[in-house]
């Protein structure tokens, strides 16, 4: 069986600063993997490299066996590699509903219909209603995102990623800025994802990490420090030192 996502020797430097060095990892169908590491470890940069937002200095990325290193971000999305953004990145003047309509239409390549009425595209309304419901966004469906509470923007960010029907889903701190009561919703939604989907989640909240992840990868100063099951990671002294230690210092 080929891995869904396979990263090999991925490196990136900004000028002299080595932000990612020689990272290799893979995700198989059904994986629930957490990527953790202190602030500035290079987690978001890793996501940007994998999804094609920035080009790597070295290394290869394979998606479902296919080398996608030189493909654009949009092409990778069309192959099923979807991410959510750490800071909600939405269209401020569009309503919640319009976001999901756009995502579904884009996924089905129906966005070049110039004379169709969005309200009448077959199947669209039902699917969007389902997505809204799954994230508890139905009451704000017609609200412009610019006037939405930040936590709800985060939920929409997740709903948008789910709307794309990903094969590999990368969530960059999906619960950051979401009230604790709402973060359960995000986990619930992730639980309901198709089992054969590979999910990589970046998260600082260790409660969430332990509830979600079967495997954990630790990144520190741009390097892969170690990886293993949740139990192994907690027991690993290097992790305590580098990650948990630095977190403790911060407080």
């Amino acid at each position, binding site marked *: 069986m080929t891995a869904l996502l396979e990263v090999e020797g991925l490196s990136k430097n900004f000028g002299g600063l080595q932000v990612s060095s020689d990272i290799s990892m893979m995700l198989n169908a059904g994986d629930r993997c957490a990527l953790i590491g202190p602030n500035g470890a290079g987690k978001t940069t890793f996501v940007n490299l994998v*999804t094609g937002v920035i080009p790597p200095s070295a290394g290869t990325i394979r998606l479902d066996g296919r080398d996608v290193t030189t493909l654009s971000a*949009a092409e990778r*999305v069309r192959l099923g590699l979807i991410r959510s953004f750490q800071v909600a990145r939405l*269209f401020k003047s569009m309503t919640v509903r319009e976001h999901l309509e756009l995502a579904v239409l884009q996924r089905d390549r129906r966005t*070049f219909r110039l004379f*169709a009425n969005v309200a009448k595209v077959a199947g669209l309304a039902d699917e969007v209603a389902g997505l809204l419901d799954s994230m508890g966004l139905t009451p704000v469906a017609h*609200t*412009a995102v610019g006037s*939405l*509470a930040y936590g709800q923007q985060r939920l929409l960010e997740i709903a948008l990623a789910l709307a794309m029907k990903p094969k590999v889903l990368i969530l960059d701190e999906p619960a950051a800025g979401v009230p604790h009561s709402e973060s359960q919703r995000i986990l619930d939604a992730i639980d309901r994802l198709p089992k054969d989907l590979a999910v990589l989640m970046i998260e600082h909240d260790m409660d969430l990490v332990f509830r979600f992840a079967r495997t954990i990868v630790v990144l520190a100063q741009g390097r892969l420090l170690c990886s293993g099951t949740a139990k192994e990671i907690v027991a690993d002294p290097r992790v305590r030192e580098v990650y948990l230690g630095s977190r403790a210092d911060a407080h």
Partner: protein
Amino acid sequence: MTSVAERDGKGDGKAGRMTGRTPLAARRDLGWIGIPLVAAVGLAAFWLLPDDLALLTRIAASALFVLSLDLVLGYGGIATLGQAAMFGTGAYAAGIVAVNWNNDPFIMLAAGGLAGGLIALTTGALILHARGLTLLMLTIAVGQIVQEVANKARDWTGGSDGLSGIDPAPVLGMFRFDMYGRTSYLFALAVLVVGLLVARRIVRSPFGLACRGVSEDPLRISAIGGSPKSYLVVLYGVAGVFAGMAGALTAVTSGIVGLDSAGFPWSAEALVMLVLGGTGRLYGAVIGTAAFMGIHHILAASDPFHWMGFIGLFLIGIVLFLPGGIASGVERLGGLLRGPSQNNGEDRA
């Protein structure tokens, strides 16, 4: 055209909530009422101002042109000072077709739309990777090139003398273009209204939705798998069809086409009219054109030397006090009339 809600994007949602503004395309084009209103006012003007039909005809044709600019700028966020390239191309195409082959007004419109769309698609594919100031320069350059080509191709276009002798056949073989300009005006008004209907259809389509996304955040469009540039090129092409038809409409109703129809001043004037009326609303283009050309007409008659200064002052006033253009003032007024409980976008299904 940053709204307050856009600026306070992240952070606490409460501050944003109070500034929420009409978010839906459907609301921004006044829903179902805007276009019938244009038709009704247009018809009323036909009865009330029978001596000004020539002016009214020019307003209607120009409004179609400004509408094309609204598609590009208001819905695609493409800054351009070269929209007249498509207008001029359409006008010449219609004129050349009429003089040499077929003078049916609908054939002329089709020729103008086709020519405008083609030139927009080809030049758009070449220049729309650029953004901001670079793109602005490139659009100006395209306009200059079109004008220069028209100037050089004297045999076809009449060069700097202009293309004259365009004598359109009766509309549908029944309504002759009379010397009072009645047919001209009603024809222009009808084309404008149909243009508005089609434009509204497009901005409410999946394509229109995607274009609004591109204008706000192209990178986010890539992140859902779209290619921002292809949306912009197609939008530019569609707007080119509108601009080309506006040019053809001018050729039909005025009987002449000059080099200035593709010129930079005409592009810039269209931008002024659009900003005056309000971008991203469709009917703002009509309001802006009518206001600009109406004021021009009145002032140029009473004070031929200073009218441009008045327009300038007027524009400054609008930009300072009504940043969304006259149309946003109309919307605010409508909001006041409807009572204080609205304007959050939640009251519309």
